[in-house]
């Protein structure tokens, strides 16, 4: 698990790190929308240039960003292979038994993979440059309008920040319990799938128990400090938009332009034809 960098904060001093988390969240939102709406490879090239530019601006090593792809590599290969084998239209390249591999199929699976890679890279860029607390603040800030339809946004934000806060603690606890059971001769990587599942019990049970105990203690601590959701609470760090935030939002709007351009012009360019 330690090698998976997806969702981990990467401390650095960069213009992207200093942006308001709300801006980054909105930006990511536009980015994701763009990825799903864009159809043409040229459009993707545009998004890729965007993503790479932000990675450099954020001063995150390319290796770290690539590592975040490790988590989805299986999914990536799986979709690619399926697409290559089952894309029926277009010029046949190789044919055997019932499977036809077409030029268009290869091209399509390539774009699908690119889409997935861009998606993971973009979203992990958000977590690389934004601490979990800042992210929760941003969500709370952006969801504020929901207050008017009776949803307690602050509640949601607290629940989320508590959940995020406990991920590392539970991870640590898990490692500790695994070590303790290993020291008693447990083996987690032998036997068939049922044996493996059974071997997990001595980890899961103590983990559940300690998680419940933790939750209980936390609830008590909240109570003891008179935590009351209905009260109007103030914040230590108040989010404020700066000039760079407006600039970043302007760049986010460029995505909309990119989508429009993609839909109107770029889709009609026949890349495969041009390559030939």
């Amino acid at each position, binding site marked *: 698990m330690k090698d998976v960098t997806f969702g981990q904060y990467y401390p650095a001093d960069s213009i992207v790190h200093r942006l308001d988390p709300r801006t980054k969240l909105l930006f990511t939102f536009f980015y994701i929308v763009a990825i799903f709406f864009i159809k043409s490879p040229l459009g993707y090239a545009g998004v890729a240039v965007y993503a790479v530019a932000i990675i450099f601006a954020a001063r995150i090593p390319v290796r770290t960003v690539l590592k975040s792809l490790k988590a989805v590599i299986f999914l990536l290969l799986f979709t690619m292979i399926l697409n290559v084998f089952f894309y029926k239209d277009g010029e046949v390249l190789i044919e055997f038994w019932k499977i036809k591999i077409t030029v268009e199929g290869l091209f399509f699976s390539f774009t699908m993979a690119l889409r997935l890679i861009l998606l993971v890279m973009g979203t992990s860029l958000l977590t690389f440059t934004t601490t979990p607390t800042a992210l929760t603040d941003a969500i709370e800030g952006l969801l504020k309008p929901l207050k008017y339809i009776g949803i307690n946004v602050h509640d949601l934000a607290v629940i989320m920040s508590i959940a995020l806060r406990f991920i590392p603690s539970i991870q640590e606890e898990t490692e500790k319990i695994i070590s303790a059971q*290993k020291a008693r001769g447990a083996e987690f990587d032998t036997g068939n799938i049922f044996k493996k599942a059974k071997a997990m019990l001595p980890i899961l049970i103590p983990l559940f128990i300690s998680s419940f105990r933790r939750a209980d203690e936390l609830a008590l601590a909240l109570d003891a400090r008179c935590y009351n959701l209905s009260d109007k609470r103030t914040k230590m760090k108040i989010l404020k938009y700066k000039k760079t935030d407006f600039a970043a939002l302007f760049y986010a709007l460029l995505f909309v332009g990119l989508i429009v351009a993609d839909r109107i012009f770029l889709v009609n360019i026949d890349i495969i034809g041009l390559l030939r």
Partner: protein
Amino acid sequence: MPIVVKNLSYTYMKGTPYEKQALNDVSLTINDGDFLGIIGATGSGKSTFVRHLNGLIKLTQGSIIADGIDLSAKKPDLKLLRRKIGMVFQYPESQLFAETVFKDVCYGPKNMKKSAEECEALAHEAIELAGLDFEAFKDRSPFELSGGEKRRVAIAGVIACKPEYLVLDEPSAGLDPKGKDEMYNLVLKIKASTSHTVVIISHDIDEIAEYADRIAVFDDGRIYADFKTADIGQYADGLKERGLDVPVTVKLRNALKLSEITGVRQNELIESILKYYKTSK
């Protein structure tokens, strides 16, 4: 056979901004029959060090030969190693999982592929050795026990595997003074019967000086000193510099400033003070 550690270094999260060197060129030999106390401030590398001993952390730099098993080999026999070196973690009660005390204590022997009868015999012995009545406790749920009892059950679960070496990471954490004394007496009992070599981590120098025969002091990933408990007086200044305390007994001895008064352990010190006053009168 001893556990020989040579030039051991270890870095957590290598290659990330969270990188931290936990151990830096540590060499230490743990001999048969040692009662070794490891002390050091929080984050000095004590836990990382002992986790290496039974292969819970993979050796990356340096060498460890534990009871003849070379951990720098490509595939060391970790199963055999863990059978030989038992490990009691901090707050070991958090590893309890089974529905009865008996089943939990049997977990280790069962993993070692012992027969049902052997498991029962080992569990019986271990629970009794841990100071609990086997018949009274075996069918109870470990979760309904008191904190001290839970810890005893957890320790029984480790000594049921009959390790030759026993490593305990702060076994007395969170216990009251009486509980602490009982815990150390339990460790002495285990040392006398099943595991003849004991390593204890603690940052309570009084406890360590009272029970351990030999002390290794960790400081910022290195070993600052490694000495016989009786010689601790020589290291008083160095210990203070490293944010560690000197045992009360040593402070008292130094305060009395009488060369005839020796001893580090409470009873030794009292004896020598009494002897001094009797002879001087």
